[in-house]
């Protein structure tokens, strides 16, 4: 079986991260599995971790009285799920539920935040990776706001 460190070293999110930092991250990780339909996290609960997905699919959802359950996005092999652990009040803002059998590495947020504070170069490298994900998600959200598939031909 692969060690957590080896899994992280191969994961796209940690690609090109200094090996000693991968080791540092691995120290905060544990392997987890979710069955189809099982909650990964729930809105309002303390966000004390994030997930590095190895295999599977997780739906990020929100519930509203008018809309019912809506899936906002899905995360898949090679994705990272959750950044609420990074910023106060460290609480999940959405629900996340496994769609199929899913295996992941859960990384302890408090443990990682401590290491980021202790070594600012490591903290910056981590922050850059999360900023890139956030930028991609923001772009995707803007694109969906445009609702491009209902627009007309330029006249």
């Amino acid at each position, binding site marked *: 079986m692969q060690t957590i460190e080896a899994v992280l070293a191969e994961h796209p999110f940690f690609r090109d991260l200094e090996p000693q930092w991968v080791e540092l991250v691995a120290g905060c990780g544990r392997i987890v599995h979710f069955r189809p339909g099982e909650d990964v996290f729930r809105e309002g609960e303390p966000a004390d971790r994030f997930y590095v997905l190895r295999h599977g699919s997780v739906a990020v*959802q929100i519930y509203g009285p008018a809309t019912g359950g*809506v899936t906002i996005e*899905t995360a898949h092999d090679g994705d990272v799920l959750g950044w609420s652990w990074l910023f106060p009040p460290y609480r999940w803002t959405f629900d996340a539920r496994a769609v199929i059998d899913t295996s992941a590495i859960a990384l302890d947020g408090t443990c990682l935040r401590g290491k980021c504070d202790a070594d600012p170069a490591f903290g910056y490298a981590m922050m850059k990776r999360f900023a890139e994900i956030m930028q991609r998600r923001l772009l995707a959200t803007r*694109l969906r706001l445009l609702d491009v*598939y209902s627009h007309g031909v330029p006249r």
Partner: protein
Amino acid sequence: MASLAELPRAAAAAAPAAGPLVPRVVRVERVHRETRDTVTLALRLPPGDPALEYRPGQFDMLGPLGTGEVPISVSGGAPAAGTVEHTVRDVGGVTRLLCGLRPGDELLLRGPYGTAWDAEDGVGGDVVLVAGGIGLAPLRPALLQVLAARDRYRNVVLLYGTRTPRDLLFSRELDRLRRRRDVVLEHTADYAEAGWRGRVGVVTDLVGRAPFDPGTTLALVCGPEVMMRLTATALVDRGVPASRVRVSLERAMLCGVGLCGHCQLGPLFVCTDGPVVSWDTAAPLLVIRER
């Protein structure tokens, strides 16, 4: 004297093998409802009709009798058996009438017009098709062309984005494609209800991890303009040369044959220089703000 609506019928009778400039009266053979607002019309054409000789990516001008005409891409058909297909989304006056046609109804058709995908330029390498919404329709003939000569290409990848899971076109065909081992098909919906088990997110996000070698890839992209811009940029960022990324431009058209200038985009007439153009040509034009 023949009325205006009857003139094309008279022309068709006088010249059964009319050139592509002459509108012909054709008959709807079959109608297949794809989604709540989109149908595929199979049209029966007389033997020798030039529209049967279409190249994937080209379009015809279609007009319900007594109304205007709109450009609609050929989405497939069986030219050897005398039919071509067009997949039409109801967005306004003319497309609504087209979507309401029934088997046996007549309409006007002229074409085929415009440039083609020329998927054969990808032989020996990977082919990546990226479709958004109704954009799968113009890409379908190119996909079928590639699949008909599957062993001449390396990876064949179809990335398809729709607004919701219910907006999927050609769903039975896509199910069959999904079962093939020699095709990678990824579909994503912008929005979905909680029970949906597929992918949710934008189609441009699929480009980053799709299995293709940028150096040997020919990419064909069709969808709303913003989607095409972001997809083409993502493909180029991954290393596909801009000259190997092709997009299908959309501009409102009148004549369809380079006479009226209605479809002008910078130095291009989309109807004759397009609709399919490479990204190195399209990119500088699509970022020009029209006032």
